């Protein structure tokens, strides 16, 4: 059970993020929810990469040969970078929308419909 704790935490964060995205009306809060989902996925990725007692794959003066590939760490870093780009773009969209619509509420964001 204790070993599954990081996964449970990750899934809880993802679900909280999704709930935020669906229930909040403010666009900024929706984007915060999206960032929460992303943080949860990142946590999940990092959690899958941890092997108890493993060390980084650096052979010089290695204490033990039980090593872990840093693949998920690389993946997480990539996703963080993608996440920053996405968040920045979304926030700039919200800025433009606020300027033009004089509102940042998702319910006012319905000029395209039908």
């Amino acid at each position, binding site marked *: 059970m204790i070993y599954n704790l990081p996964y449970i935490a990750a899934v809880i964060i993802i679900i909280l993020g*999704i709930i935020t*995205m*669906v*229930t909040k*009306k403010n666009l900024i809060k*929706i984007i915060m929810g999206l960032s929460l989902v992303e943080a949860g996925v990142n946590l999940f990725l990092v959690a899958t990469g941890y092997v108890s007692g493993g060390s980084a794959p650096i052979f010089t003066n290695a204490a033990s040969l039980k090593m872990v590939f840093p693949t998920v760490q690389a993946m997480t870093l990539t996703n963080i970078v993608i996440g920053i780009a996405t968040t920045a773009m979304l926030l700039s969209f919200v800025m433009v929308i606020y300027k033009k619509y004089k509102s940042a509420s*998702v*319910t006012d*964001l*319905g*000029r*395209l*419909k*039908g």
Partner: protein
Amino acid sequence: MALTESLYTGFGSWNPLAWIVAFIISLLIAWLIWKLGESDYHKDTEQIKPYLSGNAEPEKGDVHVRAGNMYWGFTEALKGYYDILIPLHTGILTDYMIWFLCVIAIVMVIVIGGGMI
């Protein structure tokens, strides 16, 4: 003529070129029939003006049937269907996400539940 092979659908075949030839022949026949008629069209006469029972010709823009008037009968006949469908397209981002999550939930039940039955 390997390129002009018919399209084999596995059940039958369909030859586009044969179809085109048939089309051209029928156009040709139509043209011949048209050609047999008497030519009584004269440009630059009163003939080219629209005749609306002697009334004055309306503005050009009023003659054109606009898109909004087309398929009125169709949408009217399916009013019950459209009255439900169009309001579903609310344009609200939250609704889009709820639909997305609902489909995930439904497919999750079908795929995981389906395997257990």
